[in-house]
């Protein structure tokens, strides 16, 4: 039950029993979560991993095109958004990027005086300045640790200033310290959207499909999803990245909310159903050929496109399955004795649900899964994966680089999928490549979604087993970040406190 009268959402810990420290069998994890015995534990050694504000709500909200983001914080909390004038600009206009493109944000730059006397006047000034400078349709106000601890009444300021500006003001309660679970940030953002921006009582658009895109899905993924939906007479409504404010306003008019990352979208999906009657589904996401089929079929059920979708799937499979078979054959030939290539990867819960089955599809296997955090929102889906591929080890940790370095050595997979947030884990004797590209990457090579992406990503992974020079050289020529004993003991969660 989502309560839009409340100032903000509950934390993921409260709403869904979320944790970010666990190492064990996936089946036990699901069991403990079902029984309600799963508890989070503190670490005595911890590494910087992103907070509610800065993983990476700022860099998402700033991409909303006709809005202004105001970060009510000291100057460092928004420095991640310095990339705002470039984030999508490398995408060529010929690939469909709108030319009308200008993003804006302000910091209230809270200083020593403000933490004593309060920063409400500055916030009021920033809102008016935003209106005067940019005439935006919406102004998002992002809270911070500092605004939270000094007890800033952001909603009070909003109530007072709202009738003086044309823009709709959307406060987002994303104080960095409010939760251990970075996914709380998504919920806090969607709460603001549902409460302030989504319009009631507007005509339904039966061909509109809401899709919340993560920053790990690229421009080509959008193009592929658009292509597929268009072929059956549907239109995607991609939010929040690169969207206009109007695209949020019409969320309640859509026929269905479809997942790319289910736990990212969860709060929005539930809220849209509860408040606006838009149905949603959580599984699967359009990664891999089989899952793309199922994703499209599910959307078709909500939009009355059952016939059209079967034609589409048949035609697409004819084109792409032979290419997939080439990839499968290549992977099958890599190791002697018909052993499967092992790939260690995944990031969010969403990627656990997409990647493990995708690896099955291309004929490789995962020795274990790593996920940022875990909650009870997708238990059936995780159980489904276990049923499909068998039980597997899971490490739940939010970008703990030492633990990632440890588990990568321990399982020693043929390919480790890493990202800039996984520290030194890429330095190794065997394969290492990136887990995904980012939203501004417009290259065909970087696609992962839909049929095209399934093939592109398969070929991409094949490249990673063909040369290991970079990671091997770095392993040999640079000292390890951690002491040797770390790798000699067996537990990646060595520093987990035993009590809750």
């Amino acid at each position, binding site marked *: 039950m989502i309560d839009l009268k409340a100032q903000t959402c509950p934390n993921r810990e409260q709403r869904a029993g979320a944790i970010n420290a666990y190492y064990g069998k996936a089946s036990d994890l699901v069991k403990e979560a079902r029984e309600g015995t799963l508890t989070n534990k503190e670490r005595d050694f911890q590494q910087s991993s992103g907070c509610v504000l800065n*993983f990476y709500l700022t860099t998402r909200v700033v991409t909303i095109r006709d809005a202004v983001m105001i970060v009510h914080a000291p100057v460092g909390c928004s420095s991640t958004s310095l990339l705002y004038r*470039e984030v999508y600009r490398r995408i060529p206009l010929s690939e469909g990027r709108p030319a009308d493109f200008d993003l804006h944000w302000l910091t209230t730059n809270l200083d020593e005086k403000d933490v004593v006397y309060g920063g409400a006047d500055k916030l009021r000034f920033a809102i008016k300045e935003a209106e005067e400078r940019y005439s935006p349709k919406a102004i998002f106000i992002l809270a911070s640790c500092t605004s939270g601890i000094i007890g800033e009444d952001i909603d009070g300021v909003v109530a007072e200033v709202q009738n003086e500006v044309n823009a709709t003001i959307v406060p987002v309660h994303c104080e960095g310290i409010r939760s251990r679970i970075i996914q709380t940030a998504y919920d806090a953002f969607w709460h603001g959207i549902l409460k302030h921006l989504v319009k009631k009582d507007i005509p339904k658009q039966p061909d509109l499909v809401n899709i919340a895109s993560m920053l790990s899905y690229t421009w080509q993924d959008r193009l592929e999803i658009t292509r597929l939906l268009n072929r059956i007479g549907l239109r995607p409504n991609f939010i929040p990245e690169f969207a206009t404010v109007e695209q949020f306003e019409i969320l309640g008019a859509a026929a269905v909310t479809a997942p790319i990352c289910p736990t990212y979208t969860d709060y929005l999906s539930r809220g849209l159903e509860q408040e606006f009657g838009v149905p949603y589904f959580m599984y699967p996401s359009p990664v891999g050929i089989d899952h793309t089929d199922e994703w499209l079929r599910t959307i078709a059920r909500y939009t009355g496109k059952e016939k059209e979708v079967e034609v589409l799937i048949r035609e697409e499979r004819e084109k792409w399955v032979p290419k997939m078979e080439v990839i499968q054959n290549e992977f099958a030939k890599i190791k002697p004795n018909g052993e499967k290539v092992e790939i260690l990867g995944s990031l969010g819960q969403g990627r656990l649900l997409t990647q493990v089955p995708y690896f099955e599809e291309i004929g490789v296997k995962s020795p274990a899964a790593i996920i940022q955090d875990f909650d009870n929102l997708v238990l059936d889906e995780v159980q489904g994966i276990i049923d499909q591929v068998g039980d597997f080890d899971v490490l739940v940790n939010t970008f703990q680089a030492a633990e990632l370095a440890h588990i990568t050595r321990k399982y020693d997979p043929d390919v480790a999928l890493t990202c800039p947030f996984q520290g030194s884990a890429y330095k190794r004797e065997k394969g290492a490549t990136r887990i995904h590209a980012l939203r501004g990457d417009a290259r065909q090579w970087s696609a992962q979604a839909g049929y095209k992406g399934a093939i592109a990503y398969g070929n991409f992974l094949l490249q990673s087993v063909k040369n290991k020079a970079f990671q091997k050289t770095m392993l040999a020529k640079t000292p390890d970040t951690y002491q040797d004993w770390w790798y000699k003991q067996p537990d990646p969660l060595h520093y987990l406190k035993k009590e809750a």
Partner: protein
Amino acid sequence: MGTVTPLRTKEEPLYPGVAEAPRYSCALGGAYMATLATFGAVPILHSGAGCGMAQNFGQNFAAGLNDAGPQGNTSTPCSCLVEEHAVFGGEDKLRALIKSTIELVRGDLFAVISGCVPALIGDDVAAVVKEFRKDVPIIHVNTAGFLGNSYKGYEQFLEAVIDQLLEPLPAVRRQVNLLGIVPFQHVFWKGDLQAIKTLLEKIGLKVNMIFTENNGLEALRSIPAAELNLVFSPWSGVGVARKLEEKFGTPYAVIPSVPVGPKDTTAFLRFLARRLRLRRSSVEKVIAAEEHRAYRFSEYMAAISTMALPNAYTAIVADAGTAIGLTRYGSNELGWLPEIVIITDNPPEEFHAEIVRRLTEGLESAVKPEVYFEIDSHKIRLLLREHTVQLILASSLEKHIAVDELNAMQVSVAFPVYDRLIVDRTYAGYRGGLALMEDVAYKYGGPL
């Protein structure tokens, strides 16, 4: 939206701190980056969980697509404070973290950097750090995001080093420390430090770059042994140099910028020769050889310079030190016309007059730049629109604006830089000017 209201910059904004995209992070960010730039130093953040990771896109990646190094970003130990610590205090969490970090992470020096949360809740961080002093070299940088920007944090790191780590040493003749080049904020920091060191070694100096020295702890500890501290910025690092003078009696010299190109580099070497009483003839020998090579090589770029940007009106949007170096090189060696300079590193008022003087005096160009001090990227955009220029040396925030709105070439040379990798690149010294021209001509080059 697509357009920006063409407002004239307001004369006196009510809250000058409220700004679009100021070009730095916070004091914690600056102290953190300075620690990471000290090889062998391990930062320990006592802060919310995002304070280290956020500096990835916000500091090191913004400094020419750089990693932060083996202890940076998600590899940085952090107490990851949440609400319950804000209520009950974070000291126990920090104590456990320091202990485990010393066990697990390889390093010679540990730097506990405290952020907004402990500052607001009143944790006694110094007392916790003190417990570990008998075991390892450890310092506490008592900062907070709301105390200032990255430049402030850089100074706070060095001040903590001075107060908590350094002991007096006898001054070693001809030994100098390089100060004022702020890691990552000054996007060419690594290349600049090395270029200056290599150059000064040629005239017989012993040079301590501090940052990127192989043994960071030893480099820090030998700071008091310098005969002279050199500050390569008109303002940033001056406070540190003053503190070193007070505490160890080391005199300092403020060099207003990293010297770019032969003329300023020669002037810099002659200044040092006088100041450090070096043998004039051997310094002149170095100067003659370096100048010969630099100018003989300049012959290779004469044609492209004349074709691409003869007497170009230029705009420079950068930190004060970078702006001074590039303005002088462009004006005094390449024949450019410096039309407008916008200083983005927010120097304190007391330094403004000197910065303006450095940017407007001693220029061969008949055009002297209008100089603005502005942190607000929106206002910077509006200021640029009031000028007609052919070349913009700026941050990558100006990249698309230059092409779409100003019809000018742009090269990213100042923070933030998200459109090029800068690892060892430098515009410092005799060959620096040529490197700048290489980058500028890359934007122009193609079949003629």
